[in-house]
C-alpha cells in the first residue's frame, strides 16, 4: 500500500487471513466503536457490550477463513456482531418486550382515524425538553421486540442506510420500511402518552 492510501476492508480481510497482526489491529480500530454501539443497542449495558465486542472480534479472527470475498465484509461482520450480542443476551434473564400491535393507532371500521383523537402535542421547541424526550425514547426503543428494535436502532441511532440494514438483517427493503415505521409509531404513541394533555383525557374518562 502506498503511503496515505487507506486500506479497504478487503485488503484488511486478506491481511488477517494471511496472519498479518497489524491488519487485525487496523480492523479493530476501524470497527470497534460501531460494533460496541450495535452491541449496546441489544444489551443496554456497557460491560456486556464491551464483552460482546471482544467476542465478536474473536469470532472474526477465528472465522475469517469462511468469509466469501465476493460479499460485503461490513454486512457479514455486522451479522456476526449482532449474533454475538444476541447469544450473550440469551444468557441473562430476558427483559419483557411489548406487543407492538397494542400501541398502533386505532381506526374506525371505515378506515378513518377516530375524530376524538386523544393525543397531545409532543413539545420539541426547547432543547432541554427535547433531550429529556430523547432519553425516554431510547427507553421505549429498548422495550420493542428485537425485530423492530434492531431496525430503528440501526437507522436512527447508528445512521446506517436502508440498504445496509436490509443486508445485515437479510430482509427486503419493504420489510425494513414496514418495521421502521411501526417502531416509530410505537415510540410516537409512548411519547404522546407522557406528554399528552391529561385534562382532556381525564375529562373523557369522567364522562
Amino acid at each position, binding site marked *: 500500500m502506498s503511503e496515505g492510501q487507506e486500506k479497504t476492508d478487503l485488503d484488511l480481510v486478506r491481511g488477517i487471513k494471511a496472519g498479518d*497482526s497489524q491488519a487485525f*489491529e487496523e480492523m479493530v480500530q476501524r470497527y*470497534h466503536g460501531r460494533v460496541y454501539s450495535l452491541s449496546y443497542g441489544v444489551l443496554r449495558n456497557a460491560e456486556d457490550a464491551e464483552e460482546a465486542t471482544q467476542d465478536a472480534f474473536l469470532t472474526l479472527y477465528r472465522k475469517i477463513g469462511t468469509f466469501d470475498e465476493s460479499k460485503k465484509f461490513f454486512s457479514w461482520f455486522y451479522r456476526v456482531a449482532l449474533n454475538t450480542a444476541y447469544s450473550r443476551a440469551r444468557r441473562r434473564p430476558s427483559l419483557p418486550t411489548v406487543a407492538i400491535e397494542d400501541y398502533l393507532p386505532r381506526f374506525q371500521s371505515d378506515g378513518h*382515524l*377516530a*375524530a376524538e383523537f386523544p393525543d397531545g402535542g409532543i*413539545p420539541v421547541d426547547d432543547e432541554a425538553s427535547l433531550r429529556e*424526550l430523547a432519553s425516554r425514547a431510547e427507553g421505549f426503543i429498548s422495550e420493542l421486540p428485537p425485530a423492530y428494535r434492531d431496525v430503528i436502532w440501526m437507522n436512527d441511532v447508528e445512521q446506517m442506510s436502508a440498504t445496509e440494514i436490509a443486508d445485515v438483517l437479510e430482509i*427486503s427493503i419493504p420489510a425494513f420500511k414496514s418495521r421502521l415505521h411501526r417502531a416509530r409509531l410505537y415510540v410516537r404513541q409512548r*411519547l404522546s402518552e407522557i406528554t399528552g394533555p391529561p385534562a382532556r383525557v381525564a375529562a373523557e374518562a369522567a364522562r
Partner: protein
Amino acid sequence: MSDDAENPCGPTPGTGKHDALTCQRLILECLLDYESGAMAEDERRQLDRHLAACPPCGQFLTSYRATGKTLQMLKPSDVPPALASAVVAFVRSRSRKP
C-alpha cells in the same frame, strides 16, 4: 421504489388507479415515504389533500414529525477509550496470533 407492487401507496398494479386513501392507509402505509420524500408527486398530492381536509391526520402527522425530531437527538453511546486495545489483548490471549 421502482416496483409498484411493493409500494402500498402507489396505484393498484394493473389498474393505474389509486385505492381510496383512508386515514388507516395514510398512517400505516404511506407516512414513512411521505416524510422521507420517497414518494411520486401525484401520490404526494393525494396525501396533501387528505391531510388538509382531515384534522386528526394532520395532528397525527405533527406528532409523528415531533417523534422523528426527538429520535434525531439520539447518538451512539460513548465508546470506552481503552476498548480497542482491550479487544486486541483479548483476542491475543485466546489465540496464538495475532
